[in-house]
Each structure stands twice: as structure tokens, then as C-alpha cells.
């Protein structure tokens, strides 16, 4: 009888120790991780912002390079957020170097594996693209993910909508054709659709 009680007490103690131990270890590690997270939260947020600001500047045909402070200062001087009457927003970028306005749209469309978020810049007349860049996508590495390559993004500058995708390597001089990516037809078409939709939206909503 006494032995039974002793056993029971020992067992309970062991169980309590397990719970206590788990709790203590969790507390220590979570505290460490949380502290680090709090300490770096500002830097991480700033990095994310900076990435977006560089993308907008690239789309508006401004120079996105330079130190973070420089980029932030130039961005804040040039860009202001505007909204259409229906509530959707766009960015108006006034490049001090040229003095002209560009309108930048952050728009999302369906890609092959997930959504593609593009930053699309059009000029004041809403006829010509000033630049295109992609900030988020899950396309196949080596195929669809090549939309991040410089030649692909740069070819859009000066093109006019509605755009049509032609085979890679065509290097079409036509103002409404762009080179797609071999092996990534769906991604190329998705880009085509995002750009044309953005053009249509800009024209429709900005029409006087």
C-alpha cells in the first residue's frame, strides 16, 4: 500500500517535471526568438519597402540604384499615391530629371503556379509603357521565373498596348509585340494579360 503511494507520487513528480521542463524550454527559446524578431522588425519592414520602392522607380523609368537613404529620399520626392473614384489605387511618379509624369500600377494576375504581381508603368498619355517589373511570383525556376531577367523586363519600355506575345528571340521591333519565353508559354501569356488588363484599366478609369 505504501509502496503504491510512493510509486504514484514518483510518477506524478515525473509527469509534472516533464510539463515543467517543456514549458521552461519553450519559454526560453520563444523569448530569444521574439527578442530577435522585435529587434529586426524595423529593418525587415524597411527592406520590404525599399524593394517595392525600387520596383516602382524601375517601372517609372527612374534610376532605382543607389544607397537606401538616397532611394527613399528620391522616391518620396517623386511619388504620390492616388486613387481612382472606384477606390483602386495607383501611383503618380514625377521624375524630376524629366519633369514628366508616369503612372505606376501594382497589379496581380494568374500565372502558372500562383499569382504574378507586376509593377507596370505607363506614360502620361497612357499609351506607352515606361517599364515593367515583377515583385512576386512562383513561376518555374529556369522557365517562367526568367521573367525576372533583365532583357525580358527591359524590352517593354516604349511598347504600346494592346500587346501580343511572340516567340523568344524574335526581338520584334513592332510596338505592340514582345518576346515571350520559350518553355513558359503560360507565364508569357499571363504577363501579356496582366499588361493588357492594366492598360485597359488605366485608359478606362483615366478617361476624362
Amino acid at each position, binding site marked *: 500500500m505504501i509502496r503504491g503511494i510512493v510509486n504514484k507520487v514518483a510518477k506524478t513528480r*515525473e509527469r509534472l517535471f*516533464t510539463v515543467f*521542463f517543456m514549458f521552461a*524550454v519553450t519559454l526560453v527559446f520563444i523569448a530569444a526568438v521574439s527578442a*530577435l*524578431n522585435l529587434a*529586426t522588425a524595423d529593418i525587415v519592414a524597411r527592406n520590404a519597402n*525599399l524593394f517595392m520602392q525600387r520596383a516602382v522607380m524601375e517601372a517609372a523609368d527612374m534610376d532605382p540604384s543607389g544607397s537606401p537613404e538616397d532611394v527613399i529620399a528620391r522616391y518620396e520626392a517623386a511619388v504620390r499615391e492616388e486613387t481612382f473614384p472606384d477606390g483602386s489605387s495607383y501611383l503618380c511618379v514625377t521624375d524630376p530629371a524629366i519633369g514628366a509624369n508616369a503612372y505606376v500600377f501594382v497589379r496581380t494576375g494568374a500565372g502558372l503556379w500562383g499569382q504574378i504581381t507586376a509593377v507596370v508603368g505607363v506614360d502620361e498619355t497612357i499609351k506607352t509603357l515606361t517599364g515593367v517589373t515583377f515583385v512576386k511570383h512562383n513561376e518555374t525556376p*529556369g522557365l517562367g521565373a526568367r521573367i525576372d531577367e533583365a532583357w525580358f523586363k527591359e524590352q517593354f519600355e516604349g511598347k504600346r498596348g494592346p500587346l501580343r506575345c511572340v516567340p523568344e528571340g524574335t526581338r520584334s521591333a513592332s510596338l505592340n509585340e514582345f518576346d515571350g519565353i520559350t518553355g513558359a508559354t503560360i507565364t508569357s501569356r499571363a504577363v501579356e494579360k496582366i499588361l493588357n488588363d492594366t492598360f485597359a484599366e488605366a485608359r478606362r478609369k483615366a478617361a476624362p
Partner: protein
Amino acid sequence: MAAGRTKQIFLKNLGSDNPVFIQVLGICSTLAVTNVLKNTLVMCLGLVFVTALSNMSVSLLRKWIPSRVRMMVEVLIIASYVIIVDIVIQACLPDVSRQLGPYVGLIITNCIIMGRAEAFALSNPPLASLADGLAAGLGYSYVLLVIAFCRELLGSGTIWGIRVLGEWWVNWSIMVMAPGAFFMLAVFIWIVKGYLIPRDGPAKECCQ
């Protein structure tokens, strides 16, 4: 800790008991992150850090960890270190973090780390465990770096983002995709097992 023991630990992990080509562990990340050398290096540094420190932490706590919750404790420790790595990469290398995407977080599920914690850290002193974690991480890293070197060279014609093969080179798209890693890994294992490790050595049991 004797120097001979450390040497033995390192030799085993780098060669005769290598986590990748002998134990065939960590294949998921081998396939996922080895298409570009730079990303691979960051991933490897992260993994070395996590294996070394989690091994040491588990070893420090090994006398108190109740055996029925030991896996919970191990996962908690590993996860904490992985989150630390993830936060640091996000704060310091935002571009790499964007490209690696979810794979840094997936270090948690890398069997090498848990495997070393279970097989080594639970029954060895902290310093030996630190050495073992470090060695296992390095054994994984050099295999990945070799594979990444070949894949980046053949798949993109570049090394560390710098073009080394001329314009005449046609990129092997498959090398940038996951199947390319399968081929490279298979060739690597073939060469190592077929030519470098003596055939009449002690039979190795291969475990998943």
C-alpha cells in the same frame, strides 16, 4: 575532447558516413536550392549554424530531457535556430531571402539535423556534439556546393552570377529545374561510391 576524436567525427561526416551521399538525407533541399551557387552557400551556412548549435543545445540538455518528450524538445530547439537564421537573412540579405523563399524555413524538416540530434547529441558531451553538428553540416554543404556549381554552370552558363561561358553556350534548362539536381546528385553518388570509396570496405547500411 581528444583531437583524434574530433578528427574522426569530421572524417566520418565528410566521407564514409556523409549525410547526403551515404545516408541519403536532406535530398529535398538538395533538389530545391542548388540551382544557383550564391543561394546554395547561404542555405549551407544556415544549415551548418543550425546543426552545430542545435546539436550542442540538445547535448547540453540531454541529462534533463524527459525521454518521452525528447523529440518535441529537439524540434523546438531546431525550429528556434531556423527562425533565427531566417530572421537574420531577411534583415541582412533581403534579395537572397526572397529567392530562397520558404526553403530556409524548411531547414526545420531537414532530416540531417534531427538525425544528428537523435543519433549523436543525446549520448555525447556538448563539445563533441558541436563538432559533430558542424561536421555534418559541412559534409552536406560541400556536396551541395559541388552540385550547385555544376548546375549553375550548365543551366545558366554563369558562376556566382558572373558569365563564364560565352554566347555560344546554350543553357540546359533542365539543370535549373529540380530534375537537374536529381541527375547531378546521381552522377555525384556514382562517382563517389564507384571510384572514391574502396569497394571492399565495410558494408554500409543505407537508411532513409
